[in-house]
């Protein structure tokens, strides 16, 4: 049982309005249903009691002070593009949107950084940075995510192979603690051994520890040239086995994505987006960035020769913006395509050591067959974060529910056995909360709880996500 929270009363609403603006406070039926869920409604639909749009750190602080005093749960919401059922009001209370806190301050060229408010969209931040001649690499598929959302979930994306994940780019944060106090974690410095690195703990905490209100991000110089290769194979094994070999080359690929023809056919059929490569059944889409043409030519030749040696039918070279877009636009449409093709999906976001990718892919297919579930494996092969999609086909509600649960359990088990993790980039949220404790073990689970209590002893921030804390002891 969660801590017995108080319902939001009329007088609470009045107080919230007094510190914000009635035009930005919505109650009950005034709240649109899209705020009941994120991109995975399967992971829970919950109606907030009150929906508030904050426009400043001060407003966030005032709201938190009130909720802390009154024991009212608060769930912070960005663009709602999450895939773990994280930004939802599981125990009611207040949904605090930071989408109007969307300022993008000037790029700090000397420090190679940019400071933004959490509601700024990732695509807008990336554009501003690019116009200043710099580069912000984290690129999860969803470009319309709020930058705050990407920080609080430590969003990954396919370029992690070369550039790392969001956490690697967060220099410092301003945040509001559950009791309303405004604090800063680290500062605009490149290294820091001043105590525990709480900033890194907050990144990826899924809104359970504090409310991030300002973010300073590290920027790098952009690569001069980018090319994409499509390696086409007839069989899945040599295709997957090429991945570790590519990573051993002198040049690190920016991204290595794995796709199967079956999935491409879905995208073509449902979204009318054909893939520009007709031969082959299994594919690696490999992106390379380089600083000059010679470097790029060398790296393309090595990679292509390697693929052919490994049994590729051919390697296609995307050397113009249009060609690059013709491949990546199909890749970007996969989730949408699957949603259009099947009336129910489940997704397993495990990450395994790179050396175990092939083994996991093969096992995942077998596990799917056992439960009569169409399992499609795709995604970030370069970092071991293989997305395993479970698609419903002709199963009754009851069987689908039972089989997916069992199938997922086995897939997670397999990941653990291979030295992998439960989630590579989507997070735990509400969708994977049931498997979390079993996966990480009691001792580490307790450590998570203790950390949660250290920040939020009243358990009012995004309760019931990542971990469940049964009670709290004064």
């Amino acid at each position, binding site marked *: 049982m969660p801590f017995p929270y108080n319902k939001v009363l009329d007088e609470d609403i009045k107080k919230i309005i007094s510190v914000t603006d009635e035009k930005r406070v919505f109650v009950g039926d005034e709240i649109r249903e899209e705020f009941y869920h994120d991109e995975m409604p399967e992971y829970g639909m919950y109606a907030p009691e009150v929906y508030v749009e904050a426009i400043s750190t001060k407003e966030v602080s005032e709201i938190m002070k009130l909720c802390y005093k009154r024991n009212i749960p608060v769930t912070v919401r960005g663009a709602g593009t999450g895939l773990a059922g994280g930004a939802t009001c599981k125990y009611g209370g207040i949904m605090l949107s930071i989408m109007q806190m969307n*300022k*993008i301050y000037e790029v700090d060229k000397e420090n190679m950084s940019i400071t933004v408010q959490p509601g700024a969209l990732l695509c807008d931040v990336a554009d501003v940075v690019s116009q200043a001649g710099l580069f912000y690499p984290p690129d999860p598929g969803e470009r319309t995510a709020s930058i705050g959302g990407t920080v609080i979930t430590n969003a990954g994306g396919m370029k992690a192979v070369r550039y790392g994940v969001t956490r690697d780019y967060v220099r410092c944060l301003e945040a509001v603690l559950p009791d309303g106090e405004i604090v800063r974690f680290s500062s605009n410095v490149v290294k820091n051994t001043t105590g525990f690195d709480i900033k890194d703990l907050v990144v990826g905490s899924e809104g359970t520890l504090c409310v991030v209100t300002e973010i300073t991000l590290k920027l790098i110089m952009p690569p001069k040239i980018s090319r994409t*290769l*499509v390696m086409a194979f007839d069989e899945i094994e040599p295709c997957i086995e090429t991945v570790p070999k590519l990573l051993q080359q002198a040049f690190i690929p920016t991204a290595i994505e794995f796709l199967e023809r079956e999935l491409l056919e879905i995208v073509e059929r449902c979204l009318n987006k*054909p*893939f*520009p*490569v*007709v031969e082959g059944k299994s594919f690696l889409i490999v992106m390379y960035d380089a600083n000059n043409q010679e470097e790029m030519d060398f790296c393309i030749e090595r990679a*292509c020769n390697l693929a*052919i040696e490994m049994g590729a039918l*051919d*390697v*296609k*070279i*995307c*050397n*113009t*913006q*249009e*060609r690059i877009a*013709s*491949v990546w636009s199909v890749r970007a449409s996969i989730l949408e395509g699957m949603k259009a093709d099947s009336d129910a999906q489940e997704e397993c976001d495990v990450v395994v050591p790179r050396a175990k990718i092939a083994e996991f892919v093969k096992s995942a297919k077998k596990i799917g067959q056992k439960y009569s579930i169409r399992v499609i494996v795709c995604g970030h092969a370069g970092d071991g974060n293989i997305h395993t999609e479970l698609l419903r086909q002709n199963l009754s509600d009851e069987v689908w529910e039972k089989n997916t649960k069992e199938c997922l359990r086995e897939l997670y088990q397999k990941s653990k056995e291979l030295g992998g993790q439960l989630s590579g980039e989507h997070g735990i949220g509400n969708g994977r909360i049931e498997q979390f404790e079993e996966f990480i073990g009691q001792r580490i689970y307790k450590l998570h709880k203790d950390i949660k209590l250290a920040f939020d002893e009243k358990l009012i921030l995004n309760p019931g996500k990542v971990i469940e804390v049964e009670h709290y002891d004064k």
Partner: protein
Amino acid sequence: MNIVVCIKQVPANDKVEIDKESGTLKRMGAESKINPYDLFAIETALQIKEKLGGVVTAITMGPSQCAEMMKDVFSMGVDKGVIISDKKFAGADVLATSYTLSQGISAIGKADVIICGKQTTDGDTAQVGPSIAEHLHIPHIAWVNEIVDINEREIVVRQNFESFSQVSKMEYPALITVEKDINVPRLPSYKLMKESKGKEPIFLSFEDMPDKDLSRYGLVGSPTVVEKIFPPNPDIKQVYIEGENKDKQIFDILKEKKFVQGV
């Protein structure tokens, strides 16, 4: 079947400098690529070849650097490349360019089907294709959306207009320009790239043109004069409106910029 595809090398991105004196694009030193619309023409040609057999020849007019572009189309599966290059052709407008290309096509022999992209991304006139056909006195259909049927004698194509579609049939020789949605252009293949290593394009100069009337080529043969060419002024500014009376603040900005009048 002899299939000829007309292609052009264009700047690889939209940040192109303009020569203020001549009013032309500064092509030297800039990164270049094949005109994206031409990729649909190449794909159409290769699909016809796959169906009926034959030879696909890509032809272009431009500097010797076009050889790089030819390597690219060889790795898509194009059999032959022809580059029409001569200082005498420099400064050509649509009329002179299309005449030169028509002369080049005549010089290399018989063409059953000539295929062009809809337009280029730098010139944007969409006139070169049909003009070539006029110079060659052959039938032509522009902006084709679909090859409905094709055999050794004739081609049937569909054009989609706003409120109707038109299906037309032409006997060879004939020219079409194809729309960008007609197919999904294949990507260059590493295997074909290796196989075509050493394959060189054929260079044609003024001396190879059947018509040696200099007044029809280059700047002399170009009646069009570009008076001025300039990049649009990029002027995007972001302002934050804060505090009271935001509506009035926005209104004042719009009024100052003369976006609202008479109030």
